[in-house]
């Protein structure tokens, strides 16, 4: 028979049971193989010595340290509950001020007493502003109260079929994975989430006062008027690399919708956009497309991201690339569904994945 490979000899040292009987017998009776085995053994023993570490780890001390670190991260969440999650969602780094923006971008007069749709995303447009201005964007709960109705729940699900069943969305298959991305994805799915926002003039005034500004009196009917914001269901397929972060994310969700109980919307919008606490760089861009009630703004800082219009399957899309080239995302609408492909990849790689998505 052929002489076993060096790899087989190496395994013979650690896990002889993992090596076939015939190969073990061969090595025992083959002087050249026994010589090779000795060399393999010498290198293995040297590596064991060179990489040796003292035994003994203080697990209790380690656990105490980790607990403190986790608690330090937790504290702000607990303090800000229960609206925190919505607030975080509505004010994530890229989506800073998105809640306000959805309200502001909404349009159409709504009749009193009814929930009328004032905003439904049909297209996406980037709003590019200096990071400092995005940070200044007021949070929705600085103008009123945000109460979760259907809380945000995200759960890992078994597979693509389970993600489709949970969300009612089509879960696409990725045609060809980018270089360096391998294996099967894990799926995470969430049901529809919704929250109720009530405008409080007094709260808005307090926010302005804290910033050294004075607000003009609100238009009649705005104080106490309510908006319902919904989004989802949605899912994400996540390819984990053998690193602590994903190599690729493909996500799909029902786009957000906003409803109003009946404030004259243009009036509210014009009032909010005129407020001295909305940065002018953002207000000007929002005003440009705030009339149609169908454009979802995606906020990005001019310092860190660039956006390029492109297309995916004939639909207009927005390609976002971080200026240091370390991540890219493409976002596009397909009917009422918003799609995203993102990862620590190049722009052409995320576009290739987006364009290569196939129905199952």
């Amino acid at each position: 028979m052929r002489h076993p490979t060096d790899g087989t000899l190496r395994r013979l040292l650690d896990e002889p049971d993992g090596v076939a009987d015939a190969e073990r017998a061969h090595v025992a009776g083959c002087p050249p193989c026994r010589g090779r085995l000795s060399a393999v053994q010498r290198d293995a023993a040297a590596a064991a010595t060179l990489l040796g570490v003292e035994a003994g780890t203080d697990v209790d001390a380690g656990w105490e340290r980790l607990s403190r670190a986790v608690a330090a991260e937790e504290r702000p969440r607990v303090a800000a509950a229960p609206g925190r999650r919505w607030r975080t969602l509505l004010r994530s780094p890229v989506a800073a001020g998105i809640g306000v923006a959805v309200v502001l971008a909404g349009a159409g007069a709504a009749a009193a007493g009814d929930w009328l749709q004032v905003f439904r995303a049909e297209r996406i447009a980037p709003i590019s502003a200096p990071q400092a201005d995005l940070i200044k964007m007021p949070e929705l709960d600085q103008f009123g109260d945000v109460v979760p109705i259907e809380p945000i729940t995200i759960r890992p699900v078994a597979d693509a079929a389970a993600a489709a069943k949970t969300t009612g969305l089509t879960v696409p298959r990725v045609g060809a994975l980018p270089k360096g991305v391998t294996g099967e994805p894990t799926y995470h799915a969430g049901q529809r989430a919704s929250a109720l926002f009530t405008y409080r003039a007094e709260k808005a005034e307090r926010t302005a006062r804290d910033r050294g500004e004075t607000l003009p009196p609100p238009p009649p009917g705005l104080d106490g008027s309510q908006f319902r914001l919904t989004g989802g269901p949605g899912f994400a397929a996540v390819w984990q690399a053998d690193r602590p972060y994903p190599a690729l994310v493909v996500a799909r969700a029902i786009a957000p919708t906003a409803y109003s109980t009946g404030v004259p919307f243009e009036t509210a919008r014009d009032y909010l956009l005129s407020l001295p606490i909305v940065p002018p760089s953002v207000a000007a861009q929002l005003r440009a497309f705030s009339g149609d009630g169908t454009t979802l703004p995606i906020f990005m800082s001019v310092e860190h991201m660039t956006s390029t219009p492109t297309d995916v399957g004939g639909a207009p899309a927005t390609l976002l690339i971080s200026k240091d080239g370390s991540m890219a995302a493409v976002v596009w609408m397909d009917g009422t569904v918003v799609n995203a492909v993102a990862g620590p990849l190049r722009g052409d790689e995320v576009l290739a994945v987006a364009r290569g998505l196939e129905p199952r």
Partner: protein
Amino acid sequence: MDVEGQSVAALVGRVERARKGGFVVSDGAVRADLEQVFRSAYPRVVAVAARVLGSRSEAEDVAQEVFLTFCRSAVPAAEASGWLSVAAAHTALNHLRSGRRRASREVAAGSAATVAPDIADAVVTLDERRRVRAALARLPRKQAVALVLRHSGLSYAEVAAALDLSPGSVGTTVRRAESALREELNRHASSD
């Protein structure tokens, strides 16, 4: 807009943060099984990082970093041990390569007084230890990770699963790594 409970934009933000090394998709809550996983896996996670770094205190820093990422992750419990070991190896190797480790601690002095008492084998001299780390940093990443995981006590099947290799090729990868480690050390010993 809601993608697994998050806006797409928020997701993009989180992916952007990924390159900083702290991202695993989850609902943001701390895992309920964290303490149980920590107590069973912590010694091995520290050992894996210590094999790369040659310093137990630096390895403990890496272990904390890895568990902080893990605690909000959706990694299935059954895969936790393998995931943590691989993450520890990569994170420690990243520390080696980026020079983030406190190199001064090891190199600056060269005196026995600065040798952390937690550092491994008394047989290995300080200079050898420095050269071992340099050699590890030069090995192909997969070989370095396989070598460290195998010497940390992971079975061939566990190393294979963690690195997406066939069990049969683990022996080959480890063997190549050990052989390359010897050559690296010899080459640098003769050129020093």
